[in-house]
């Protein structure tokens, strides 16, 4: 075991960091509800609203995975598996949605051709 690996295995995240991450998560939570509330007053494109909500949710997820789930201080192979989940989802969404859009989605009303 090299010195670097040894340090790696013993690295940990303390309560002070957990409280900071929690505060960030709460801020993001209020941001996403706030954005939704603002959108009831100010009309913005629907796709943009979904995009904002998903960006905030993804940021929350990154914070939880990196700090609460210790991926920031985990070994390379565990980090690889965490990223593998992301790639799995990417394949699922890109291939499925690509197929739907290529065949014409949403379906059109009217008699079949």
């Amino acid at each position, binding site marked *: 075991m090299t010195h670097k690996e040894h340090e790696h295995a013993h690295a940990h995240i303390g309560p002070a960091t957990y409280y900071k991450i*929690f505060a960030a998560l*709460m801020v993001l*939570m209020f941001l*996403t*509800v706030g954005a939704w509330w603002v*959108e009831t007053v100010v009309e913005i494109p629907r796709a943009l609203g979904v995009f904002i909500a998903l960006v905030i*949710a993804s940021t929350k997820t990154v914070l*939880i995975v990196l700090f609460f*789930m210790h991926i920031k201080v985990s070994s390379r192979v565990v980090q690889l598996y965490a990223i593998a989940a992301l790639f*799995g989802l990417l394949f699922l969404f890109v291939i499925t949605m690509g197929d739907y859009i290529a065949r014409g989605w949403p379906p059109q009303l009217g008699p079949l051709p």
Partner: protein
Amino acid sequence: MRRGREAHPPASRIPHPAARILVSKEKILATTTTTTSPHGHADHGHAAHGPELQHHFCTPAQQKEAATLGMWVFLVTEVMLFGGIFMAYAVYRWAFPEVWAEAAYHLNTPLGTINTVVLLVSSLTVALAVSAAEAGKRTRVIQLLLVTMVLGVAFLGLKAYEYSEKFSHCAGYSTPAQWVGGGEQHAVYECLVPGQAFLFPADKTTGVSNAPTVAGQGTPYQLFFFLYFVATSLHAVHMLIGLTIMGYLAFITWRGVITPTYFTPIEIGGLYWHLIDIVWVFLFPLFYLVH
């Protein structure tokens, strides 16, 4: 890790690479038989570990690494399980954005927001429990795990109230309390639980659903509520399993199994709880915050 392996019977005893499998089988047999012996650890060359180190691992660090990796493999499969539901959601929201906006209006956003806060706090308490376990604060670990369980039960309670609201509407009452107490019937009939009785209150004055007919879909509003009930109930099942795990962890901590050198159960149990939190982080804006 290599250092640990050398502590085992020397590899020079193995006569030929082809016989290696056979020898390792013998080794396993030898290991299983010595497990019951009180001197099982004597010839391992590392006495500085507790009884929790299994014989097929060289060091406690390696054992913890294997457990963490195994948990992550499982979490990836969980992500794909919920990913399928999110996939179905994406396909249908893409097709019926107006339906989504109208249908989501009927979900209880304030309760959903409170539940989001409850789950985020519970994630914090679990993270703090892992820290406390590492620091060897036994009572603190148990307290934090119990607080997590209380928050988990609170989440499920609010979720159950939301569900019962929808079901009481189907039964013809405006609130669950009126349904149980036999109060007044709902003025406008609506039923947002998918099934034969599903009726979306498009026109609030007459109560007659004027849901448009879309290709292949009698009422697309039902799709939203179908996905809502499937996604949130699968999430709730995970919460129930998570609560059981937290209870078990509190129990083994109380029994003294968890020590500063061995807190892997708290760590990987925490990973599961955080995953449930992440799923809710996506469910909340996708169902409650829709325009």
